């Protein structure tokens, strides 16, 4: 651990212009990174430079700008492929976000491969974006939807997975890191068990790709989805990684320009991967911006990012545990106690509604999230109405955790 490269959040903070601003006269402590992250100057400049000097539509015009824009867009794809260790760039598809990536699989692979009586396995800790598309698919084709249960400590119950895998399961899909519990699921183990049972696997990496080294070859998953905006990139661009051999067999998702090879009056044939799944003019500049985000994160080093967030999570868990009336949701074990836990810490404060807590903290310049975090079934499973959530990234500091704690104490005095 101590041989690894460490990062200095104070130095990195200076790369993010927005973090220099004040909120209500206090320095901003941005602790809502699981919702979206801020953008470094390098990403903002990449967008700016692209629009200033290279912008045109891609894969179409025979002119200099179109060539340059196409090259920049495709270079971004290579950066994404390298970032997630995708063995083949044809498996890297730009989508709008993780939600659209998951919907792409549900609408194309799902409708072609899941039929009446088949089972789709999700977990009790899914974000709505990795639950609702499967509810719709199951209802439409007459398939069953089963949920891997979680333990009271907030970890997946793998025995429950094994029981479900005895059924006619076509797909297992799960979040790599829970956006509420901070649980890091044993992805490789789950993928291996699902494959052994003959199921395909989609990993929702929206909360993992931005925070820990991502490796689709190591995971051995069939599909992986994530959003650019949660990892220093612009909004409007996300990624679906899929095994090219599966993507080849899948029918198209959205149709129109860009995704076709030949179009006759009555029918059309499809473009090669990955463009077969990129209908219409994509988010070109945003993809270029995402490429710049990949460069930025790679330069910092994802192992350093992960180590830093584990440290902050550990510190936050320690501080919150000392506070009367504060209950932390999710696995109690901090990393040094043997349990991996991402930098997502959801909690409740006795007799203070999370909204009021978030409002009180906002007044102190501390930005957190309050509510159901798009995970209503999980909150119901845990018997919670709503929670407050602090989530960290590479630019957060221990001092900001202290300000969170101070802000909670202030709110406890107010309400």
């Amino acid at each position, binding site marked *: 651990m101590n041989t690894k490269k460490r990062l200095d959040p104070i130095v990195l903070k200076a790369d993010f212009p927005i973090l220099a601003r004040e909120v209500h006269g206090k320095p901003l402590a941005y602790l809502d990174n699981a919702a979206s992250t801020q953008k470094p100057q390098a990403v903002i400049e990449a967008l700016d430079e692209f629009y200033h000097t290279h912008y045109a539509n891609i894969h179409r015009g025979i002119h200099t700008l179109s060539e340059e824009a196409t090259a920049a867009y495709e270079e971004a794809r290579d950066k994404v492929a390298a970032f997630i260790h995708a063995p083949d760039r044809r498996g890297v598809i730009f989508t709008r976000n993780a939600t659209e990536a998951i919907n792409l699989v549900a609408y194309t692979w799902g409708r072609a491969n899941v039929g009446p009586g088949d089972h789709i396995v999700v977990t009790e800790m899914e974000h709505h974006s990795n639950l609702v598309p499967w509810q719709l698919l199951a209802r439409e084709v007459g398939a069953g939807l089963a949920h891997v249960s979680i333990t009271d400590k907030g970890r997946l119950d793998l025995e429950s997975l094994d029981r479900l895998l005895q059924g006619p399961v076509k797909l297992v899909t799960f979040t790599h890191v829970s956006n509420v519990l901070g649980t890091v699921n044993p992805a490789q183990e789950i993928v291996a068990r699902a494959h052994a049972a003959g199921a395909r696997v989609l990993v929702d990496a929206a909360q993992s790709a931005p925070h820990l080294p991502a490796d689709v070859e190591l995971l051995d998953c069939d599909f992986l989805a994530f959003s650019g905006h949660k990892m220093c990139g612009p909004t409007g661009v996300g990624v679906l990684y899929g095994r090219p051999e599966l993507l080849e067999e899948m029918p198209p998702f959205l149709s129109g320009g860009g995704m076709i090879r030949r179009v006759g009056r009555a029918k059309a044939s499809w473009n090669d991967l990955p463009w077969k799944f990129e209908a219409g003019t994509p988010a070109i500049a945003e993809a270029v911006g995402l490429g710049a985000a990949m460069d930025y994160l790679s330069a910092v080093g994802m192992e350093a990012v992960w180590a830093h967030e584990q440290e902050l999570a550990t510190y936050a868990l320690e501080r919150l545990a000392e506070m009367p009336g504060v209950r932390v949701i999710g696995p109690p074990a901090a990393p040094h106690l043997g349990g991996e836990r991402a930098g997502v810490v959801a909690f409740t404060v006795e007799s203070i*509604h*999370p*909204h*009021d807590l978030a*409002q*009180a903290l906002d*007044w102190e310049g501390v930005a957190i999230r*309050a*509510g*159901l975090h798009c995970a*209503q079934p999980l*909150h119901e499973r845990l018997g919670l*109405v*709503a929670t407050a959530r602090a989530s960290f990234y590479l630019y957060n500091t221990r001092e900001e955790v202290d300000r969170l704690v101070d802000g909670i104490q202030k709110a406890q005095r*107010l*309400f």
Partner: protein
Amino acid sequence: MENLYREHILDHYRHPRNQGTLDDADISCELDNPVCGDVVRLDIRLRDGRVSEVRFSGRGCVISMASASMLTEEILGKTVEELKALQDEDMFGMLGITLGPVRAKCGLLPLRVLHEGLDRLEES
């Protein structure tokens, strides 16, 4: 902070008016805010076309609960037509503050419950 959690808002939160439920109410309606899980229910009895009794129940933040409490005081004795005419601005007026687009959903939830209840009354 002082702006949002003014003393009269905190007072309604700490000492809610007309809290509870009514059996055989003429209007009973409950809605939730799916983003945060807040729930507000209103039970209203009418006599001669006016609100003769009203209770609210539910769970939520200071803003949604205080709004519900204030709304019950506001509508007591009012006619159905007067209830229908209540606008978002009236609710902000009762609160004495203007809420941003996110927090407005908390403050306006009780009013939405009232309007939904009135719609159902007309349909029945």
